[in-house]
């Protein structure tokens, strides 16, 4: 078979025409930007929903005319019903957790950067890659469509606990077609994530350029690679779970619906199903999901920090990467800590509590790596670094809450209070958002060929950083005081004293949210009017900085790259590109 006269062809030719180039594009860079744009839109939708909820919690009588227009039944005269509050909360959680936090740091930046990081011309399966995006897009449209159907959005929360989510319209507004669309939307998201994970894994394994051993992989790519595995195994469980849920709803089966169940005075025609089974399946996905959200953030922050502290991370690539692998692996054995008070056996609670405490060990190691790396560093405080440091701070603040939640005894008090909400907004929501911002400010020059405005970037950072602490620290404290999660009004005796704190959170949320328009303005303005970006504006060493800004269609203009170094060749002002045959400066 060793024929010498093989004429190899490019594995896909540059696209022609607007539609092929920018819409149904197979170019991983375009797809990455499409994902980021989708997430940006989704983030603003999710934020608007959270504003509506917060305003209602603080001032229950205030009318929000837009809501009244959106759903005359859900918000008569612009004041939302308790059910509609739950619908807004469900869609806030769904849109944020899936279409923002899962999509942006992984699919968004990963798509754009991973093939470049490994020196490839594209992903291993470009057409699959394109379908991942479009399936995600349709999933997002379905989620949004729930607002416009007569039924309205579902109210069973982002966790869609059965039997509430399984019995159908009798369970309340939004539990008919709203919940069906929700199931379909999430199933599509699962399929898209599986295809995406497949591409990430194969590209990292097979398309690395010469000399790019795994030990030389950029740390962001490590994050995406590990994340892809977790994603693959977790979404493969959520997909059949969605199927069983939909069958209970539409096919009359009883997987999750117990017998003798009465909803709205109607006996449900089901028997023997297990609501606990749903929780087990959901959290078997759900806990890895929170790490699916955070692992790319680990990677992005570890990738960005060395550039701005001008030295390698403590422990080299190994310590941080192995703690990521440990976190990813352990995340599959702790799911029961979400179910301590679900009626599960208390012995099982113990069984899940122990690995939950174990998983904090690699998390803490990662945090220590980032913090100790700052020691003695010659730090350049650019916006991407500020956001990385913000990430570390928020991750610690939220992670500490995890210790209280990991004890079945303390959790039985804290579960279903706003303490949990504060905990996961810190660890998952904000940490991932901050890492996404870090990545955005860092890679914007590479993606669009223009620099973002640093002053606006720093302003955006400080307002957001202080703002989110005001919101979510307060939220954790009200949780200690007993504020119940998912209540639409503070009416019980013990909650009335918490009204001022809630007003404070609402004002902080409105201000912090408003500050996001600084970011939007900065991004749009810089995209067209920003200073032209050089190829390597930050003096970084990885492969994306070894090509033009933005990179050409095949990423390196047909150059064959050879990699000689790991990604953290920094020593103060000096640095060595991964592709440069010069001697190492960091001694790695």
């Amino acid at each position, binding site marked *: 078979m060793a024929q010498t*006269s093989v004429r190899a062809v490019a594995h896909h030719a540059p696209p022609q025409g607007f539609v092929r180039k920018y819409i149904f594009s197979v170019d991983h860079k375009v797809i990455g930007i499409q994902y980021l744009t989708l997430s940006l839109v989704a983030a603003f939708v999710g934020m608007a929903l959270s504003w509506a909820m917060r305003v209602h919690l603080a001032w229950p009588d205030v009318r929000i005319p837009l809501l009244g227009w959106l759903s005359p039944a859900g918000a008569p005269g612009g004041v939302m019903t308790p059910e509609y509050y739950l619908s807004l909360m469900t869609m806030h959680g769904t849109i944020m957790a899936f279409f923002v936090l899962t999509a942006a740091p992984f699919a968004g930046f990963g798509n754009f950067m991973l093939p470049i990081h490994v020196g490839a011309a594209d992903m291993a399966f470009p057409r699959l890659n394109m379908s991942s995006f479009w399936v995600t897009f349709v999933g997002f449209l379905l989620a949004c469509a729930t607002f416009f159907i007569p039924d309205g959005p579902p109210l069973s929360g982002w966790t869609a606990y059965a039997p509430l989510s399984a019995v159908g319209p009798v369970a309340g507004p939004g539990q008919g077609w709203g919940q069906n669309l929700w199931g379909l939307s999430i199933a599509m998201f699962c399929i898209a994530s599986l295809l995406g994970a497949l591409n990430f894994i194969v590209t990292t394994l097979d398309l690395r350029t010469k000399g790019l051993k795994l030990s030389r992989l950029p740390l962001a790519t490590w994050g995406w690679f590990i994340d892809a595995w977790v994603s693959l195994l977790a979404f493969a469980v959520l997909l059949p779970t969605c199927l069983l849920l939909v069958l209970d709803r539409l096919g009359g089966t009883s*997987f999750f619906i117990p017998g003798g169940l009465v909803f709205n005075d109607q006996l449900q025609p089901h028997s023997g199903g297990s609501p606990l089974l749903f929780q*087990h399946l959901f959290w078997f996905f759900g806990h890895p999901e929170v790490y699916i959200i955070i692992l790319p953030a680990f990677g992005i922050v570890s990738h960005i920090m060395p550039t701005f502290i001008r030295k390698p991370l403590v422990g080299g690539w190994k310590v941080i990467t192995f703690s990521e692998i440990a976190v990813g692996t352990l995340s599959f054995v702790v799911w029961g800590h979400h179910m301590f008070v679900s009626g599960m056996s208390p012995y099982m609670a113990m069984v899940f509590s122990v690995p939950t405490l174990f998983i904090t060990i690699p998390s803490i190691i990662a945090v220590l790596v980032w913090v100790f790396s700052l020691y003695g560093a010659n730090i350049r405080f650019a916006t991407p670094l500020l956001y990385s440091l913000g990430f570390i701070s928020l991750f610690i603040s939220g992670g500490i809450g995890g210790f209280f939640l990991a004890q079945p005894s303390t959790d039985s008090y804290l579960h279903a209070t706003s303490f949990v909400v504060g905990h996961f907004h810190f660890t998952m929501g904000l940490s991932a958002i901050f890492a996404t911002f870090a990545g955005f400010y860092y890679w914007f020059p590479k993606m669009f060929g223009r620099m973002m405005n640093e002053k606006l970037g720093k302003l955006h950072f400080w307002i957001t950083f202080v703002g989110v602490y005001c919101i979510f620290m307060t939220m954790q404290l009200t949780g200690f005081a007993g504020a119940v999660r998912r209540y639409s009004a503070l009416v019980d005796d013990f909650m009335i004293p918490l009204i001022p704190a809630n007003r404070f959170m609402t004002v902080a949320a409105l201000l912090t949210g408003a500050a996001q328009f600084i970011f939007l303005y900065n991004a749009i303005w810089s995209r067209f009017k920003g200073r032209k970006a050089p190829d390597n504006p930050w003096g970084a060493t990885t492969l994306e900085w070894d090509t033009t800004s933005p990179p050409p269609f095949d990423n390196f203009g047909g150059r064959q790259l050879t990699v000689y170094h790991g990604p953290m060749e920094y020593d103060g002002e000096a640095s060595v590109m991964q592709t440069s045959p010069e001697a190492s400066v960091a001694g790695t």
Partner: protein
Amino acid sequence: MATTITEPPQIDLSLADYSGNDGGRNLVPAEGDLRASRDHPLEPARTGMWVTLGAITMSFAALTSALVVRQGVGMGWGHVTLPPVLFINTLVLLVSSVTLEFARRSLTRYAQGSESQMAVPMRWLGITLSLGLLFVAGQYMAWLRLKSEGLYLATNTNSSFFYVFTGVHAVHVLGGLAGLVYVMSKLHRLVLRRSTFAAAAQYWHFMDILWLYLLFLLWTKI
């Protein structure tokens, strides 16, 4: 999105040392000559298939654990007798794996030049495809049989799981059939890569193993 467009990269074969440095470029000759096609030691199609099978395994493991838990709850379990046609289907599916291996052999012989007729591997692929279709038709008959016994999706938990497992498996088999059609069309145009064939075949054999497992599961649990 001001992505500049350049010419497609050409591969200088002296540089391509097959250490993973092909950047996703295809090694099939553009003019379509199967005998000149080269294989890369790290084939995305093969790696991708392993990864895909991992995800499918995970999904079926989840469904299995759902079955075990749900049966443990014990209520509304009911009884289902496996329709005998399932055993014939099993045989059909197993034979299809054998015919696919015949296709592989004749394809190798063809690529090496000791077999001059491309029609031979094509015929074996066609037979495999028909057997696959026969399997799906047989599963359909099994569903009709249950239906005639008054066992529908929602009749009892047992029948629910029967339909779920066989249905999800059948969907995956249809995917495998699509894969075979894809392989045949590539072969027809003489641009089939060995790794493409290998991936499709691996998937197909996996469907066999998966089916044997499911049959065993349904047989013991039902």
